[in-house]
């Protein structure tokens, strides 16, 4: 029988050398990647928002809660600015160094990664974890591509009217409810040397998607817009053309940032609103995170945006602003799915802290007023309860960054300033939109959008 003493000195030393080299070269990996048998697993999770309060809240609540339930799994969080994220994530996925779990801005950004084989299909997990019973159907379906679900929605959002309540009260103004009221109000503000809407795109021209979202929904209405997005009507439809003309009217009159939208960043524009030189913002629900900080010297309010065409009732353009997906190459599928499930555990528990991560995490699940913690602002709670109700009834419009195919959206946001600056006609703009949309439709890149209630 061979005994340990049978190992000679050379074998022993070489064995120790190999073991030592292994430990020295990659000590963390050796200990972190022992998944089976209860040893700890390290999951990497990437988000596209490096704001310190958001990162802290994600760590304190989302990750800590998960690690307490699954002590053998450690989450390593990496937070990148959105502009870097666009560049880094695809490169990392293609290089095989991508995260195990990652956020994205919306499902429309995923198809290239899905087709490249970098995203894990989730259909089995949807059933196993019961996400189909928790997540709003249309929101969950927005993650479907070529018949399979590849992402789950983790934040819904909309656009609203933020306004300076002090200036409104002082001047006897009321929030506008239709086109006529809006234009009269804007003119009055201009006459008083105030800028009606603060808005800037100098740092990111694609921010025009906020105003285009509002424009299309406000004039076309949600149902007609659904028909356009579903290829049942062309982009050259006269109603869509008139929607663009209305936006043009607002811009030419100087109601939107005094026609200086391209000369200012949106942070500059927010500064103008903060200094009370501008009265209103047409901004997203994510602005609830810092509207109070910006409005430090005045009371502010949030309300529904006015519709622009008679007979069009207000429906909030709701869309998915953040999704979660799993790297198909991850070694720890089960743990990644468990982490994904963390986002939908219990509405009451989520309601305790999700107001701290506005813009990154507001899962599209049914929540009641009593689910929200008391220190969440009334504006936050009321706005989201309204959106939950609209979603339940099917009274929703469409956000550009969620429901538009990528290239059509890119063309429209990058060229609307050409229309406003008379470098392109509305007709040319819509014809080119239709041409790109038709190509995307032919290439199977137009995702179905949920039909709203009539």
């Amino acid at each position, binding site marked *: 029988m061979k005994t340990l003493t049978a190992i000679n000195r050379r074998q022993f030393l070489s064995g120790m050398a190999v073991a030592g080299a292994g430990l020295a070269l990659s000590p963390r990996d050796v200990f972190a990647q022992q998944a089976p048998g209860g040893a700890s697993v390290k999951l990497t999770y990437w988000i596209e928002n490096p704001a310190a309060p958001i990162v802290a809240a994600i760590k304190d609540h989302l990750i800590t809660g998960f690690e307490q339930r699954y002590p053998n799994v450690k989450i390593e969080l990496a937070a990148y600015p959105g502009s870097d994220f666009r560049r880094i994530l695809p490169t990392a996925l293609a290089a095989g160094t991508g995260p195990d779990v990652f956020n994205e801005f919306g499902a429309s950004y995923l198809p290239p990664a899905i087709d490249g084989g970098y995203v894990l299909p989730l259909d089995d997990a949807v059933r196993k974890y019961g996400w189909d019973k928790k997540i709003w159907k249309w929101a969950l379906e927005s993650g479907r591509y070529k018949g399979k679900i590849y992402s789950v929605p983790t934040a819904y959002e909309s656009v609203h009217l933020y306004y300076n309540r002090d200036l409104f009260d002082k001047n006897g103004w009321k929030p506008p409810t239709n086109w006529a009221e809006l234009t009269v109000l804007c003119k009055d503000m201009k006459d008083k040397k105030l800028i009606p809407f603060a808005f800037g795109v100098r740092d990111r021209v694609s921010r025009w998607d906020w105003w285009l979202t509002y424009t299309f929904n406000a004039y076309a209405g949600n149902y007609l817009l659904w028909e356009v997005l579903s290829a049942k009507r062309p982009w050259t439809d006269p109603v869509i053309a008139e929607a663009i003309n209305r936006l043009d009217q607002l811009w030419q009159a100087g109601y939107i940032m005094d026609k200086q939208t391209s*000369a200012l960043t949106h942070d500059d524009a927010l500064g103008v609103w903060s200094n009370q030189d501008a009265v209103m913002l047409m901004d997203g629900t994510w602005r609830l995170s810092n509207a109070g900080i910006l409005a430090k010297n005045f009371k502010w309010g949030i309300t529904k945006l006015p519709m622009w065409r008679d007979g069009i009732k207000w429906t909030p353009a709701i869309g998915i602003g953040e999704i979660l997906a799993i790297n198909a190459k991850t070694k720890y599928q089960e743990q990644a799915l468990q982490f994904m499930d963390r986002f939908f555990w219990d509405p009451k528990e989520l309601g305790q802290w999700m107001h701290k991560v506005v813009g990154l995490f507001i899962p599209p699940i049914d929540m009641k007023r009593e689910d929200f913690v008391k220190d969440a602002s009334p504006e936050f709670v009321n706005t989201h309860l309204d959106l939950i109700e609209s979603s339940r009834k099917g009274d929703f419009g469409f956000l550009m960054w969620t429901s538009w195919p990528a290239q059509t959206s890119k063309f429209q946001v990058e060229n609307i300033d*050409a229309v406003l600056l008379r470098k392109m006609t509305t007709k040319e703009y819509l014809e080119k939109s239709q041409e790109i949309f038709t190509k995307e439709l032919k290439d199977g890149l137009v995702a179905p959008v949920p039909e709203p209630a009539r």
Partner: protein
Amino acid sequence: MAQAVPATAGPRDLRRMQRRLLGCAFVAPAIAVHLFVVGLPALAALGLSLTDWDGLRLPRFIGLANFDELIHRDGVFWQAFVNNLHWTAVFLTVPVALGLGTAVMISRASRLQTVYRVVFFLPYVFASVVVSRIFGFIYNPFYGVNKLFRNWGLGFLAQSWLGDPGIALYSVMAADVWHFWGFDMVVFLAALQQIDPSLYEAATIDGAGGWRRFRHMTVPLLRPTFGFILMMTALWSFLTFDYVYVMTGGGPAHSTELMATWIIGTAVEARRAGYASALAVTLTLLSSVIIVGFLYLRRRGVEV
């Protein structure tokens, strides 16, 4: 009968071969690195320009379709090309004139020459992103230079510096010129200091005035410096990216778009890596025209 070949090389030949091999050995690492970090990616870009690669899916060969789109349907690319030509024209004249004029004046200064040199060169050491941000504040239509103009009763001078497509490109150029011209000044100053002062003394004794000395002595003697500055400026102008990217993102309405910003936007934002490669190949070809032009001039005996 065939001539006999010497069986062994002489000692001189061996030494020559040894020297050549030694030279090759010294250059080999640099060539290897260059091939790895420049040659291979360049070849890859050439190959990718013939595909519809989006960075993640498998690339599909589409022949010259990207170049067809670029030439016939991509109006933004040609606008960017024209903007690059404007940019080049301005940078071949304004900073060169400023740099040369200032260098001549400083070279004649008997005191504080180093101080002038440092002061005028200082903007060049600032990071372009910092300069872009500073000029972004200056151009702010509400709180920037416009406010000063209005306070001084010169409101008619207030402009939408970055918002008006007619002037936005020149506004961005102004920021870059402010940053860059000190470099030209230092290069010209260094060249001026190489000119033998006795030449000027002789010319002065012969009755040449200041202008004639400048025109018939300084300018011809600076010809190699002009050649270097003009060639580098032309190349850098075609590769300009940072100022536009930070200050305007190419807007409004692509009026400040340059070829480099359009390439990045196409590759990253639009995720069309194949098409962006075609744009990059075209940019390389257009830049090569400048190099070839300078090589041609050199072969014709022009000292550049």
